[in-house]
């Protein structure tokens, strides 16, 4: 059976033009996806965890779903400060149950945001977000800047769907007209296709952004001959390209959120965009990674007022990344139980944060066994959103897209499992 307009649940480009062929409950062919998307659909079945598993002193053994849910409820109710972490690889409906659950438990809820674009959000909270949809970029942008981002490897269809290689309604010959600037500390594959590549010295982002702001403000005489390894000549050229553009779109990745200065870099980038808007139209979009990491921020914000790292221990929402974010809470050994949903912190957190996961009762709800499994007491497999579960997901520009289910592999969804756990918790707490 051929499924059209299938949405790819891998990265936050959320490409919605895939054609997927299924035969007898198996995915046999995928069209239009990139390498990452293809791989996700075609190999999904090989890696699934088949049934709930429980850790015993001598190894892993299977568990019934009933036991897994009972024990999860018991762990969460018995904890003083449970951490509910992950959420980027599931749909908005499940995320919203997670936020409700954290509130009733008086726990902390955080998503993978805190280790990807958390700093971008901190900067946006300081100085605002001059954003737009990717449709605007596609149809209008004649200048695209990728700063600390490598879409060819991390978001392989970003350039062909929304920027460099796509037609634009308001551009005559988009492919020729559109210029691309890439800024990075290494010559990435994306740098190879740039019209202008700026190679900056490690940690030099803030200085280069400041220099560009100064030039755009008309203060180029105060710029030294080089700034973080970038020549003044190149900086002047770049500033001119930006000012001359009819519509510029600035995309930034973790190359700038994870480096020193963190959110202050993004603040500076937003202020550069602000400066450029005095000359032309310029926008800025974070290159969000997981397909629904943005969704968690949306859901959490409309439910609590805050986008991630929300602590309910005071009986109300409290937000202070650096204190209420997952890595910090684990490093301080503050949480006494953890529920991991749709992510793999053991592969992506510094090892001393990971160690604490194994010292407390940890339960994981995830379709695949992963490195976090090793630190869990239990894992409950669920359906994969976009393959055998449906739900709402948010693209990197904040556009909600309904992700489809294309077959049934017999797994419960995140919403089913979390809904049941939440129902039992409410019952026990009499709320």
């Amino acid at each position, binding site marked *: 059976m051929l499924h059209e307009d299938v949405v790819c649940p891998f990265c936050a480009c959320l490409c919605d033009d895939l054609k997927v062929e299924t035969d007898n409950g198996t995915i046999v062919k995928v069209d239009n996806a990139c*390498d*990452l998307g293809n*791989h996700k659909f075609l*190999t*999904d079945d*090989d*890696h699934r*965890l*088949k049934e709930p*598993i429980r850790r015993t002193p001598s*190894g*892993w053994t299977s568990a019934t779903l009933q036991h897994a849910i009972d024990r999860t409820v018991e762990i969460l109710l018995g904890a003083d400060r449970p951490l509910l972490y992950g959420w980027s690889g599931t749909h908005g409906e499940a995320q919203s149950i997670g936020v409700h659950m954290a509130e009733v438990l008086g726990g902390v809820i*955080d998503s993978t945001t805190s*280790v990807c674009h*958390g*700093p971008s959000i*901190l900067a946006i909270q300081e100085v605002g977000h001059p954003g737009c949809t990717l449709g605007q970029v596609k149809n209008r942008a004649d200048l695209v800047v990728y700063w600390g981002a*490598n879409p060819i*490897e*991390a978001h392989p269809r970003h350039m062909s769907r929304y920027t460099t290689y796509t037609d634009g309604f308001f551009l005559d010959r988009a492919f020729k007209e559109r210029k691309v600037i890439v800024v990075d*500390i*290494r010559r990435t594959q994306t*740098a190879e296709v740039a019209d202008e590549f700026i*190679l900056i010295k*490690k*940690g030099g982002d803030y200085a280069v952004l400041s220099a560009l702001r100064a030039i755009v403000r008309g203060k180029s005489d105060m710029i030294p001959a080089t700034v973080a390894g970038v020549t003044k000549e190149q900086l002047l050229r770049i500033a001119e390209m930006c000012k001359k553009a009819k519509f510029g779109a600035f995309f930034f990745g*973790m*190359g700038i*959120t*994870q*480096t020193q200065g*963190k959110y202050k870099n993004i603040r500076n980038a937003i202020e550069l965009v602000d400066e450029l808007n005095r000359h032309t139209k310029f926008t800025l979009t974070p290159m969000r*990674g997981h397909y629904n990491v943005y969704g968690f921020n949306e859901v959490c914000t409309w439910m609590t007022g805050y986008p991630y790292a929300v602590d309910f221990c005071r009986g109300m929402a409290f937000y202070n990344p*650096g*204190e209420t*974010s*997952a*890595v*910090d809470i*684990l*490093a301080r050994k503050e949480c006494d139980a953890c529920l991991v949903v749709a992510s*793999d912190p*053991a*592969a*992506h*957190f*510094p*090892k*001393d*944060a*990971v160690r604490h996961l*194994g*010292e407390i009762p940890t339960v994981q709800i995830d379709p*695949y*066994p*992963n*490195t976090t*499994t*090793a*630190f869990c007491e239990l894992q409950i497999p669920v359906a994969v959103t976009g393959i055998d579960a449906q739900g709402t997901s948010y693209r990197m520009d904040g556009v909600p897209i309904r992700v489809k289910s294309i077959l049934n592999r017999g797994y419960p969804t995140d919403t089913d499992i979390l809904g049941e756990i939440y129902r039992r918790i409410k019952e026990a707490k009499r709320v």
Partner: protein
Amino acid sequence: MIFTLNTGRTIQQGNNVEMKYHPDYAKEVSRCHMNPLDMLDLGVMDGERVRVTGPAGSVVMYVVQDETVSHSTVFVPYGIYANQVISTETHGTGMPDFKTTEANLEPTEDSVLTVPELLRALGGMPYVA
């Protein structure tokens, strides 16, 4: 020699993201990409091993020659190997220093641990179907 450890996504890391016990995942995220001149200074060749030591500890990785990596930095695909050396310090932002950790590199004959070995060392019990 001290280098700045820069981590990031790669296609291969992305493809193996749902199969962390597969040797392909370990192969990708245990690669330490180095500039050829830095390799010369350190006295290592492509495919040899280095011990990378940072604030949280140390881990052995394979050297991969890579002209795109800048002098005095190394690039490691984001994953469990790099996280053996990165500290939990977030400077009050929630975000560890994934791209700016200072690490000491030295050539070594020690072998590169497998993902299950790394997990066991942290007290985990790997699940193998």
